[in-house]
């Protein structure tokens, strides 16, 4: 095939989904332009420490992803935001933040997710009480090798609040973010590795362990790490005079409210449709679902297709997903894209 015959695909978003999709499309013979709004690719993965379920160092996954997109057919352009998509005959024109119009034969949206901003759950006092942190903050602490309170002390009693920004109609997120439960299990175990005698408590509504080896990890965390699970959603957090956190929670299985003092509280922030994805949905008439993520053309056999011909989805811009599923979803988009090219050529 001559270069002139090759199909041009723009992939929007340089996280796990975008890098994998770009790599697979390039290997399938497409000329790929990858747009990433940040100054470097890697998305959220580059902020994580170890990954469940096998406690692999996230750098390994990052290296794999970057290598995937290191291909002669791929041009990676960082610091570029896609403003809108426009159909022009069979082509899709991507208008960028720099005023360019990139003409392509297909577009893959891999705009990913934003972490829920924990400040929106005012009652937990994130960004007010010093030792209330988010799951993302804890990953940074793990990466830096130092889990400490604001006053420099090593925390001895650490709590995890599940479902922060998920399964919560008060913040307009009725859906489950799927990964926070297992992330809490993983982080609780990591805490025990960092702070040997720490007492760790997880406050959960349901333990949703629906991924390969998740339940096993959960059981291991109980049996070998002594993580204590308390079924009940924390309703309120406050600081006491010694700057310890007081949580209000019901132990729903004991049927009584429970009072506990903690040195540190970790909020398991959920996943939301990214702001950049939402802007694209609005500017380009892409359909979104009730949960604000992109609505796939079909839930069963069209999860990579959009309502616009030639525009496809990969990864967490359609729903919360773990890295494994994101990479699979990104690979699957290649089948839809190449199918599409075959059909328009025919």
């Amino acid at each position, binding site marked *: 095939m001559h270069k002139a015959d090759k199909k041009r695909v723009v992939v929007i978003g340089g996280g796990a989904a975008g890098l994998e999709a770009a790599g697979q499309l390039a290997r399938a013979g497409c000329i790929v332009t990858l747009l990433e709004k940040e100054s470097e690719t890697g998305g959220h993965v580059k902020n994580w420490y170890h990954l469940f379920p096998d406690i692999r160092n996230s750098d390994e996954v990052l290296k794999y992803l970057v290598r995937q997109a290191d291909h002669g057919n791929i041009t990676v352009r960082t610091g570029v935001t896609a403003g809108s998509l426009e159909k022009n005959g069979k082509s899709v024109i991507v208008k960028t933040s720099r005023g360019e119009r990139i003409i392509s034969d297909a577009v893959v949206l891999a705009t990913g997710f934003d972490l829920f901003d924990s400040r929106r759950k005012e009652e937990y006092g994130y*960004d*007010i*009480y010093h030792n209330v942190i988010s799951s993302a903050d804890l990953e940074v602490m793990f990466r830096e090798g130092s889990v400490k309170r604001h006053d420099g002390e090593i925390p001895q009693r650490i709590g995890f609040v599940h479902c922060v920004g998920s399964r919560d109609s008060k913040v307009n997120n009725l859906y489950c973010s799927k990964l926070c439960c297992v992330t809490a299990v993983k982080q609780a175990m990591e805490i025990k590795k960092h702070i040997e005698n720490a007492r760790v408590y997880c406050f959960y509504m349901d333990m949703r362990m629906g991924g390969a080896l998740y339940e096993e990890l959960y059981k291991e965390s109980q049996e070998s790490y002594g993580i204590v699970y308390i079924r009940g959603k924390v309703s309120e957090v*406050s*600081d006491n*005079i010694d700057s310890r956190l*007081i949580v209000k929670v019901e132990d729903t299985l004991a049927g009584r409210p429970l009072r506990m003092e903690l040195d540190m509280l970790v909020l398991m922030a959920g996943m939301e449709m990214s702001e950049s994805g939402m802007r694209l949905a609005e500017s380009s008439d892409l359909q979104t679902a009730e949960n604000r993520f992109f609505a796939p053309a079909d839930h069963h056999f069209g999860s990579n297709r959009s309502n616009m011909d030639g525009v496809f989805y990969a990864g967490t811009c359609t729903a919360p997903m773990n890295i494994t599923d994101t990479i699979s979803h990104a690979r699957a988009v290649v089948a839809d894209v190449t199918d599409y090219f075959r059909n328009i050529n025919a």
Partner: protein
Amino acid sequence: MKSEGKKRIWAEYQKEIADDHYFYVRSCIRQSFFPGSEQFFLHFLGDVLGKDIYENPSHTTCTGIGYHADVVPLSTIMTVIARHYALMKDAGYRHIVISCVTSFGIYTEIFETWKHFPEELEKTREYLYKATGREFDLPESMTHTSDIIYKFRNEIADRAKYRLVNHETGEPLNIVEHIGCHYSKMFPKYGVGGAEFPNVLGGMIEAWGGNVIDYPERRHCCGFGFRQYLVQANRGYSLSNTTKKFSSMKPYKPDLVLTNCPGCTMFMDKWQYTIREMEGTVYGENGESIPVLTYEELAGLVMGYNPWDLGLQYHMVQSEPLLRKLGIEYDPADKFKTKDGRQMPLPQNLINA
């Protein structure tokens, strides 16, 4: 604690507070138990700031006590509120100022009910017209009296004779602010600063030089509750919640509790007496109880008004320890004298005095 985080929340919950031309509705409890508060409010707005504030003698109770005690039905209380709006319309006012937090909660609840169920509004119009021949308009703004004092907190600070600091040590006084549940827990948008970190009283305390205490049970209800106190056997629920709050604030050594709800002021004041009698527990320093004031009483003190003119002697917990800390001069002999100088009977066993 990060104050920037609180400021961010406060910026999200700023309400429109009218600048002038107020239609004022009184509180049953306030005018009975701490009458100096409403007196000062009217005096400050009318005489000091020169604002137009009007009250109509035909205004009645909002019937909130009966409503929360399940003896007044919703349709009745909506019609009573509609009648107040009719009085306001007749007098040519559009900004209602509500003196009681229970009433404020009822006004906001009904306002929202009418918004979401317009047929209820139409029914209420019909009931009121049939009963009284009156018609009404919805208000342009609904504010609580504490919103107004919050709005003019800096005007008060400008006229301050005393700052909320211990005049001997120069340290700011530690002040607990307690917000009535029905001020913003039902509708955070109607409260200055929202429901979790309200700033309506905190803003006053800061403007007047005090230190606001954030203690673990700050957001807990004072325990008041009409159903709880109307039936003697239920009063333990009310008392226990107040006890929970005071035990939680005690380590911070508060010099004062400031509240914006008549029920909270009354019960945080009076239950301190009860707990002391029942269990011998006091929550202030030096074996004293903690004075509980309204925001107008505190504003009056800051501006140098005579504490006995503000009616502080009618509280269960007396304010002398606070007055001494602030360096306010007062004459104990005048405490229970009428305005024309006659001696009133002296109460027995005053707390803190």
